[in-house]
Every structure is written in C-alpha cells, then in structure tokens.
C-alpha cells in the first residue's frame, strides 16, 4: 500500500487558457470551446484525436454533457469531476492516470467556471440538503483566523504581519500586471491594501482572490508518445491529493498556523518526484493564494522555508518573480482571478509556459540552475480541506 506516483509516464503536449475576467459576453459553453480550441491548437491535434475527457467544474454544470454538448463530441467518454477549488487539478490528475494506465492514448483535462452569472458577489456554492447546523461563515473569515494565530505562535507583531500578507498581494498584483490573461492588470501597493476596510478579521477585499470567469485545458499522452506531437512536452513528475478528516475543526491541538493536508500532499509529491529539498530543486511554484495568509502558511507547509520564517522571507523578497523562489509568477488567484473549476489548470498553464521558456521576456523566470515547477491547489477551509500538489518538469529523469 503506497502512493507510487507516475513519474515521467505522462506528458502534457498542449495547453490553453482563456483570459480570466468578468466575461459578461461569454457563457460556460464559450469558455469551454475557447480553452479546448486553444489546447487542441497548442498540441496540433483535433478534438477527435482525444480519446477521453475529464471536465472539472464546481457548479457551472452537471455531468459530461456540460462539455460534450458544446464541443459536439461524438462517442467520447466525458467525466465531470468536482473537488472544491482543487477541481481543475483533479481533472488533470484523473486524465493523467487514464493515460498512464493504458486505457487511452490521449486525454484532455479541462476546467471551467462561470461565476459571474449568479448575481451575487464572491463565490457561493449551492448547498446540499442539510440539517441547519452547518457553520455560517465565509471562507475569508475562516482564513482570517490564520493571522492572529500565526502572530501569537511566532511572536510577530499583528500589525507587522498584516503588512506582510499585504506584501503578498502586492507581489501577486505586480505579477498579474505583466500577464495579458490576468483579471487584474494594475499594481497595488501593500500600504494601500492595509488602509482598506476590513471585511473579515483584518483582511480586506484585496486580501481575497479575484472572482472571475474562465477556462483552462491540458492534453496529456504517455511520455513515450509525447514527441510525436510536441518538441518540448512537460512531464508529470508527481500528482498527489489529500482529502482531510475535518479533524482540525474539533481538535484543540490545531492552531490555524498550518494546513496539515497541504503538508501531507507536498511530502507525498516530493516522494513521488524524488525531491529531497524542494527549495533547491524547484524553479517556481504556483500555490493556492485564495487569501493572502494562505500563501504565507503554504511556504512553510510545502517546505520552501522553515516554520515561523515565511513572513521574513516575504519581506526579503524571496518569493518575487526574480527572487530565489518565485511564487505565483502569473499573478495567482489574487490577480489572475479564481474561476473555481479552472484555477488548477491555470496554475499548470503557468508552469507550461515558464518551464518551457515560453512566458515572454518580461515575465520569464530564470531556469539556469533549476527546471522543476510545483502546483499546489487546495479547496476548503483551515481545519477541513482537500489539497493537491503536482511536480512538473521539461526533462525526463
């Protein structure tokens, strides 16, 4: 019994990603067609070349019909998957396993979310039937618990920590400003974010991910076949997923300064990929910055720095695009936007561009010493979450 992984067995040969923004002029169908077409074009294949599809959407449609109908897929299997905000990554994970198993030669993972048709602000999932005793609290409020907890545990002044997480938003906005597909293209100084009204705990609206519509897609084949389609495929080194017990909510030992599900998923992914020291092995990471304190804690949970030091590394600029450990070079959920079902694949899209040197002169990170990338994608809340981690690289071995 073990998580063996499928290191170097599957390769991404093409990807597509729509702009993430308020697409008042595009529906779910349009977004899916646009992302799928971009991915087909990227791989140089037609829709009929793809043997099976995994569609990730949290709430923009039910069943495979959500994809097979707009794309007019004839006789193809389409599976709709949902795993909270990690839905897009889950689609890629399933498509990759299907190809690795030999069941199919070519599979597509596509994620979509059409959020802005709800008429409400923010993300609002339709609840299942319930007994009326569930918590009534926004995700922002749950994640806002991290700030005072972290400040207390590591003896950091709360006002200083508030500025630290605003710096994370500032960095992600700076990255997003350079990215033509990102929802927010304007820089936002941390000082200004700190002056804004709090909406949950000490978090302001600018500590929360952007709410956007969008879609992203990937086409995967067995690694041995990759060069038939693509000169520079991106190999999957690790795919890990942990769904938590929810124990953090009721365990008095849980202190809201770490997300154990993320730490476990990271450790599993590093085992699969054969990584001992992620900080020296990884050239970049796309992580789930749903709220600014989330990104800070993830730096420690994913082993990019020691416990209690992420806040210092943020201030030192470690996670800037030109820093030692670039994080969310595309702007992250914060500036790129967060169409739930698409976000995981959007993160992989940034790795697809960066690790193959395709991000463009103004955005391209340095790959001279390291060429592996990591994607971290979570869903849920502190104490009860699902977490995905993948590792990708442009070379076998």
């Amino acid at each position, binding site marked *: 019994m073990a998580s063996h992984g499928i290191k170097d067995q599957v390769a991404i040969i093409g990807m597509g990603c729509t702009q993430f923004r308020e697409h008042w002029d595009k529906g779910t169908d349009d977004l899916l067609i646009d992302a799928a077409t971009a991915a087909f074009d990227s791989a140089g294949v037609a829709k009929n070349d793809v043997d099976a599809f995994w569609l990730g959407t949290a709430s923009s449609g039910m069943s495979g019909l959500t994809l097979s109908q707009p794309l007019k897929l004839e006789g193809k299997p389409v599976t709709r998957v949902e795993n909270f905000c990690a839905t897009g990554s889950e689609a890629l994970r399933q498509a990759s396993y299907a190809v690795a198993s030999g069941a199919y030669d070519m599979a597509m993972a596509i994620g979509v979310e059409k959020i802005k048709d709800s008429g409400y602000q923010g993300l609002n999932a339709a609840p299942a039937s319930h*007994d*009326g005793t569930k918590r009534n609290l926004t995700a922002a409020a749950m994640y806002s*618990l991290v700030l005072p907890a972290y400040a207390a545990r590591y003896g950091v002044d709360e006002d200083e920590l508030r500025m630290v997480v605003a710096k994370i938003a500032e960095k992600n906005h700076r990255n997003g400003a350079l990215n033509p597909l990102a929802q927010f293209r304007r820089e936002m100084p941390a000082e200004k974010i700190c002056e804004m009204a709090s909406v949950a705990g000490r978090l302001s609206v600018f500590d929360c991910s952007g709410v956007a519509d969008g879609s992203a897609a990937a086409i995967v084949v067995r690694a041995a076949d990759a060069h038939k389609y693509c000169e520079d495929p991106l190999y999957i080194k690790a795919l890990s997923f942990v769904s938590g017990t929810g124990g953090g909510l*009721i365990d008095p030992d849980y202190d809201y300064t770490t997300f154990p599900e993320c730490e476990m998923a990271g450790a599993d992914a590093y085992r699969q990929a054969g990584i001992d020291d992620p900080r020296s092995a990884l050239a970049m990471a796309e992580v789930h910055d749903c709220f600014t304190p989330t990104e800070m804690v993830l730096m420690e949970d994913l082993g990019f720095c020691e416990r209690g030091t992420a806040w210092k590394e943020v201030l030192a600029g470690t996670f800037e695009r030109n820093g030692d450990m670039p994080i969310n070079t595309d702007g992250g959920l914060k500036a790129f936007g967060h169409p739930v079902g698409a976000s995981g694949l959007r993160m992989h899209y940034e790795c697809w561009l960066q690790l193959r040197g395709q991000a463009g002169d103004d955005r391209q990170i340095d790959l001279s010493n390291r060429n592996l990338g990591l994607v971290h994608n979570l869903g849920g809340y502190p104490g009860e979450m699902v977490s995905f981690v993948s590792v990708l690289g442009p070379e076998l071995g």
Partner: protein
Amino acid sequence: MRGVISFGGYVPYRRLDRSAIAAVMGRGGGRGTRSVASYDEDTTTMGAEAARLALRPVDGEPRALWFATADPAYLEKTNATAIHAALRLDASAGALDFGGAVRSGIGALRTALGAIGPTLVVTADMRGGLPTGADEANGGDGAAAFLIGTEDDGPVVAELLGSASATEEFVDRWRQPGSPSTGQWEERFGETRYGPLADQAWKEALSAAGIGADDVDVAVVTGSHGRAVKRVAGRLGVARVADDLAAAVGNTGTAHPGLVLANELEQAEPGQTIAVVMLADGAEVLILRATEALAAYASALPVADQISAGAEVSYATFLQWRDMIRAQPPNRPEPTRPSSSAAARAQDWKYGFVGSRGTESGTLHLPPARVSIRPEDELDAMDPAPMADVGATVVTFTIDRLVYSVSPPVVFAVVDFDGGGRLPVELTDVDPDAVRIGQRVEMTFRRLYEAEGIYNYFWKARPTRSSSGD
C-alpha cells in the same frame, strides 16, 4: 401539597432606552429601559432558555411540558416540541402549546397546579407595537418557566394555598394573527370590567387559601390593562406590591406574572405568602407560600442579575430586529431551509447539542461522528456527549462582514470546552469590539434564521452569564 419545585426567569441581554424612541421619532418612549429579544431569539428560544434555567437546580424530569405565548413562532405546528427537544425530555413527556392569548401563561400555570405529575410550564412573550406607541415602549421580552409537582417529584419551594378565576367576555385588547400591533378599546371601559372581576377572584382565592389579605406578604400584580393593574394593586390590602420590573424590563405579557414571581421567589424568605394576580380577559389569582426548602434553593441565574447585566441596543437596530424597517442585506445568497428529515435524524445534536465522545480516546466530536478522528476508537465506539451546559473559552475569533446575516456582522469564534473538545461557533449577545481571546462563553439555544417559513433552530455561544457555565 402541589406547588413550585423549581423555576427560572429569562430576560434577554439587550435593552432599549425608551428615551431613544423620541430622539428618533420626535415623540413616544418614556423613561427607563425595556428588554429586547435579539434578532436570533423568539418566544420558543427564550422559553427554552428559561426552561433550562428552571431545570438546572433540580434532578427530576417533567412528565409534561406546556408552553404558553401570545407570540408563537409557528401556528399549526406545536412550538413546545422544540423546547422539549432542547431539554432532551423523554418522548413520553407530552409537549403542548397553550395558544394565543396573554392570559394563557397564568392559565397554564394554574392548570398545572391542579394537574397530576411533574409538569414544566414555560411562558414567553415578545411585546411590541407600532413605533412611538405605548406598547412599543412599555412592552418587554422575556420568559419564565416553572416545574410544578408534589414532594414526590422534588422539594416544593412554594406550595399552592389557593387559587381562583373570574371570566367575562369583553373586547379590551385584541390582535389578529400577523398584525404588528395590538388594538385597545378606550381605557376607562376596561377599568370598569377588571375591577369587579379582580375583586371576585381575589376574594375567592383568599377564601380557598383560608387567609386574609393582610396575611399576604407580597402580591405580584400584572396584566394587559395598565390602569386596571395599578388600581387593583392599590386596593388588595397586602403588605407589599411586587416590583413589576417596568423600569428595566417592561411588561412581558404572557410571561410577566411568571417573570415577576420568579424575581420575588429569588428574594423571598421561607414562610412568606406570595399572591399572583393577572388581569387579562378576566382575572386569575394564585396564592403561594414559600416553604423551608426555598432556603436551600439556588437559582442558576437570578432575574435581578440578568436585569443588571443587560446592554443597550440602538432604536434603529431594534426596529430592524422587529421587522419595522428593513436594511439592505449583504449581496449574498440567503440561507436555504433546513431539511426536515435531516434535522429529525440529527435531533439530539441540533436541538440538544449532544456530540459524541470516543470511548477510548475521550475525544469530543461536534457534531457526533461514527468514526473517530483518533485511531484508537473503534467504529461506533462513541458515547453521547451532552454539551449544552458545559462552559467554554474563546481560543480565537474573527468578524465576518461579508456573510449573510439578519444582523451583520457575524462574530465567530473557535471555542474549547471545559474538559476537552472544540467547536468553531457563532457568538451572540456580544459586541464585535468586546470579544477577546480567553473570554468565557456558554451555549444558548437560538433561531439562526428563517427560510421559506421554516425556522432554523440551533445553538450559539454567548459570553457567560450563568454561574454554572463559569
């Protein structure tokens, strides 16, 4: 001899300063304060709180629960059943509503004093009226509960000496279902009816008790006709008329005779004789005598302590809570109604706040779970863990200004229970600025919201008020 075994009065935390009414409206109001049920309270939840306080000092379990209010949360559906569930009474203990009329509270109490078996009488009311009206200013919200029985059911702290009733049909105060205000006939007419009815019932009750008016130490006189109540109180010929709590609480209608009586019992000496006179569509009189057992009786949370612990609510907020004005809600989906079948399956959790505890690990699970978060517990190796009366401490908290609420912002805390166990839970009866880590809290039964005509009852935590939750 049948009498009161235990009792509890409940005064909600919020107070409206009556002078705030004229400050906004230019008229109305008056001096002093009135009690105000929070936006997440109704007569059912206040009744449940009073009942919890009443049952806390005693071991016995009622064989019947009678609930009386003039402001029922539901018609058609029995409201007493939610209180029954919150108290975790046995299914064989019947739960009945005494419906509609202000007189039904004292009526239920008098009927229980003549009934068989330990009976828990719960009375509650929310009084109000249109802005600037006398009912708005002089009304109050509150509840009172009495466990009635004989010595077989527990020490009787106040025994019934006698009672009487006088009834006549006349239209003095009336309200149709759903109406926000109560009508009143020209005041002097009612006065002419209540006087003779009160005289008749008073005389009969004294005769039944075999005492004279001068043997009565204190009389609790309440009713729905202010002038008649004053007039009658002045001519009973008793040593003292009880403080009617008008200055701080107001007239809590159906609950008022019970609330004022509870306050008097909390200050009474053994051997004292206490009369209760209620004027509503006639007159009801009870004459009780405090027994020696009262000396050893300790209220879980005396009415006087609750009155002094109150905190202000603004008139604007009061009007919103009473649906007199509607503020713009956050642009978020409204909550959905709870599933009746899911709620029924979770009854002990939802209404009784019962979790489960692993038999090996002792780890508390809220809500109750079949599989433990600790590996040492076998499947289904769980014991029920009733947590409603267990105190807790705030570990951390946050203020949510985004989430939908009838009265934003939502104050939310992670709390650790005494003896182990944790729950992230909404706080109530608290100002956002006053929450702090380390604060002591206790659980309270509340109405979380209403959706599609269904009220969603569950528990919140509030800063500790009762001595046992400390």
